[in-house]
């Protein structure tokens, strides 16, 4: 008999029952809630006279709409304010814990979950947000859901789901020094495409993955959705277990030892069968920069922008032409010749302490280039911010000319005041470079935190691994 994949194990662990047509009711261990996709779900509960099934399994935070400056003045935009106020009220009414804007633990929902130990190995984790895949880094089955499903989870602590297929992505060998988790995942998406993971849950394995910190693993799983997979997974090892030791919501006392034992089995069996296996040479990965309006339009920093004429697939070719037009770029241009206007270091992809350290290391003792209109550093949570400040990273950034902000989604999706103006070009550590994502007409290049900081200093993209940092 063949063994089980990590996904198979997590799935089986959570099936309440399965219908004849193969759809299953699966149990949800942790539901994360934010202000944008939850109001109608709470309203639905209220109209139907329902109560949350287990209020304590929900954790709420406002992140998408919150300002990153002048918090004490409240939220200026009335629509955003109403959404945040509504979340506060709903959480009080339904007895759900919320980290409000004034709470030091407030931050991006996908940063605070692991940070608090609220999302743990072996759990099912859902949130009305596609980047819920982030939490798969701990060996949890985590995926995004819609508003009707948010209500379903609130009311039943369950979801109706059909099982996805298993995709294994194997990173062969070790990455070279200076190459980060962001470069790994961008290189993967560049290879398999944004639809490559459609219908699958991706498990990432290999030496290069094992070598990543939990923060780096979260960056990889965060972007599984950008590869078309609703969920990404990384098996539990000592790195995982060490990370969760003593987190506020982590198991305590004898529960911890029991959990540790249970978590040790959260890996695919040696003889597990995957529906598809893709191998990637990790040793060949260089720092990545996207040049188009889809994360798959990506090259290494020392390359030039590809020529659409060389693309044989007509739909792809047209997509490339459109992307180049929107981005204001030309085939054959060297990536290092592209000048940027703004720099954004933040988002649920890259706003954890390790990301800020990597960016600060590049910025230390330097000044941002004269052509940079704005360089923002937005920590992922209040606790990341505190930690960074205790390490003096805020000073490093400020002295280099960066702005040091309050935690939230910020310029990742420009729902608050932080945004690109039409035609502005941004080196961004976020996860989506879609048209208009960071502001109407804005042009986004996805990069790692170190690469973003290096672009801020140089005023254009540079290979951060070629810079002497000491």
């Amino acid at each position, binding site marked *: 008999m063949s063994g089980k994949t990590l996904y198979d194990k997590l799935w089986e662990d959570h099936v*309440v*029952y399965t219908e004849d047509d193969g759809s299953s009711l699966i149990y949800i261990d942790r539901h994360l809630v934010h202000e944008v996709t939850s*109001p109608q779900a709470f*309203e639905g509960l209220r109209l139907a006279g329902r109560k949350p099934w287990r209020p304590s399994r929900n954790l709420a935070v406002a992140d998408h709409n919150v300002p990153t400056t002048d918090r004490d003045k409240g939220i200026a935009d009335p629509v955003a304010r109403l959404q945040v106020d509504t979340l506060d009220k709903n959480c009080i009414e339904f007895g759900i814990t919320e980290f409000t804007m004034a709470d030091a633990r407030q931050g991006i929902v996908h940063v605070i979950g692991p940070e608090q130990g609220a999302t743990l190995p072996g759990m099912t984790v859902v949130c009305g947000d596609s980047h819920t895949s982030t939490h798969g880094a701990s060996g949890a089955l985590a995926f995004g859901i819609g508003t*009707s499903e948010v209500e379903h989870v609130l009311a*039943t602590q*369950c979801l109706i789901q059909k099982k996805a297929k298993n995709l294994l992505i194997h990173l062969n060998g070790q990455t070279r020094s200076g190459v980060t988790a962001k470069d790994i995942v961008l290189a993967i998406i560049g290879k398999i495409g944004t639809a490559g993971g459609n219908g699958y849950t991706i498990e990432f394995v290999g030496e290069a993955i094992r070598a990543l910190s939990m923060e780096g693993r979260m960056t990889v799983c965060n972007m599984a959705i950008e590869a078309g997979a609703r969920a990404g997974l990384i098996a539990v090892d000592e790195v995982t277990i060490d990370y969760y030791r003593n987190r506020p919501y982590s*198991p*305590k006392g004898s529960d911890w030892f029991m959990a540790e034992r249970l978590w040790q089995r959260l890996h695919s069996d040696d003889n597990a069968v995957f529906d598809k296996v893709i191998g990637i040479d990790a040793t060949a990965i260089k720092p990545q920069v996207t040049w188009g309006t889809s994360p798959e339009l990506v090259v290494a920093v020392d390359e030039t922008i590809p020529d659409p004429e060389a693309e044989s697939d007509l739909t792809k070719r047209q997509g490339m032409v459109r992307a180049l037009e929107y981005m204001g770029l030309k085939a054959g241009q060297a990536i290092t010749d592209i000048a940027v206007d703004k720099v954004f270091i933040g988002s649920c992809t890259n706003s954890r302490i390790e990301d800020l350290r990597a960016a600060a290391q590049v910025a230390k003792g330097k000044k941002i280039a004269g052509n940079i209109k704005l360089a923002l550093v937005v920590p992922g949570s209040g606790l990341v911010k505190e930690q960074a400040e205790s390490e003096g990273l805020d000073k490093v950034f400020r002295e280099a000319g960066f702005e040091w902000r309050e935690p939230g989604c910020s310029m990742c999706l420009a729902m608050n005041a932080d945004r690109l103006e039409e035609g502005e070009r941004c080196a961004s550590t976020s996860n989506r470079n879609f048209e208009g994502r960071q502001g109407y007409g804005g042009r986004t290049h996805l990069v790692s935190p170190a690469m973003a900081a290096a672009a801020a200093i140089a005023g254009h993209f540079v290979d951060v691994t070629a810079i002497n940092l000491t």
Partner: protein
Amino acid sequence: MQAFTLLTSLVAPLDRANVDTDAIIPKQFLKSIKRAGFGPYLFDEWRYLDRGEPDMDCTHRLLNKDFVLNKPQYKGSEILLTRENFGCGSSREHAPWALADFGFRAIIAPSFADIFYNNCFKNGLLPIPLATEVVDSLFNELTEGYTLTVDLNTQKIITPNNREISFDVDENRKYRLLNGLDDIGLSLQHTDKIRGYEAERAKRAPWLFVDY
């Protein structure tokens, strides 16, 4: 969710094809934090002569007298008769929310956009696709006071002159509508199984059932 079994009602004819979700509920209303209360803004740009904004009091707005839903003879209609590809455009669940909130229970058309069709069932609305000729015949015979009876159980529409028209609906969805079960209602029928699962899981992973 409100159950749907037998409905006899006036019919409002909306003689347009490709009615998109932006026409059903314009995008400025998506900023709302509510699911209820979209009824007054249903077909906002067609129903009113001024521009609607969220939370606007619609009782004093300028009505477009020519729009079918503003005509007194169709007041209280719970059945909408319309043309092909109804509900095309975005996936917003606000479209069926607005139709249901306005008071519609059934929509008859030659065809529906896919996502909209699915969303209807989640919100107690019955979309009924009928052959184009049949829809044509209903439009032709519709006069003042025209009513139809929709019997979901037997999957039949009965016209005022007792013509019976059969329609198709997926068994699973029919069951949910007949019993007024949304997905949540249906899942809650398995309350015992969920509780059983929790009890068993609490033995394997007790920390998931402790609130630290």
